[in-house]
């Protein structure tokens, strides 16, 4: 069971879990979400369902909200 570092906290994810299912399991919508995954910047437009999570992956999430 891979251990993921989500926003600097350790969480377990099921074997074979991908980035999209990981977020869905936590009710985190991918709309207007910026992901920093192992130092790479991703959004919901990227194929998150094809990225399989592995032990030690680091994920930080940033919500983009309106206003400017």
């Amino acid at each position: 069971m891979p251990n993921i570092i989500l926003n600097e906290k350790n969480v377990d994810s099921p074997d074979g879990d991908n980035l999209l299912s990981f977020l869905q399991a936590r009710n985190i919508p991918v709309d207007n979400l910026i992901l920093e995954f192992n130092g790479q910047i991703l959004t919901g437009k990227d194929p998150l369902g094809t990225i399989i999570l592995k032990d030690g992956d680091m994920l930080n999430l940033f919500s983009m909200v309106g206003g400017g």
Partner: protein
Amino acid sequence: MNVNPYLTDAQQQILDRAKIGVAGLGGLGSNILSHLVRAGVRRFVAADFDVVSESNLNRQFFFADQIGRKKTEALEENLRRIDPDLELDFRDLRLTAENIPEVFAGCDIVVEAFDKAEAKTMLIGVLAKHGVPIVAASGLAGFGKSNDIRLRKAGANLYLVGDLTSGISPELAPASPRVGIAAAMEANTVIALLLGNEL
């Protein structure tokens, strides 16, 4: 004309050469540009399709006698009143995932200054793959909570200002002080990146 005589020659040379992209000329973009021009940056590419409206005057760097005018034209005029010697490539167009790489090609840093969350996310998604430093903002509506607005770095090239939660809503409007804090922090981050200062 030298609007910022407090710079060293070496610093002015860096700012003279820099080309900064600004996506959106509303509460963030208009104020960011004002800060950057006063700091001594001279070369900009910016885009917005909107015209100045009365509801903009609570926070945007426009004036009552500019209502109805294109933001690109009105802001160009206002910035040249600060420094007549600017190189401005202001485009009256809607930025899209398709045209963003072309519009901001050659920029040293691109500043995200949209109002809609979808547009903010889109710009970051498109430009993060190009490697250009991006300074963006999320979470700046309302009043108070000044200390919640801060700068975060994500990945190698993304700098994110705001509290990440205070989005605009019927209960939470954008207003000059807090939008201004975020705009100033975005501009301050641009200057620090250019000059190699601590962020």
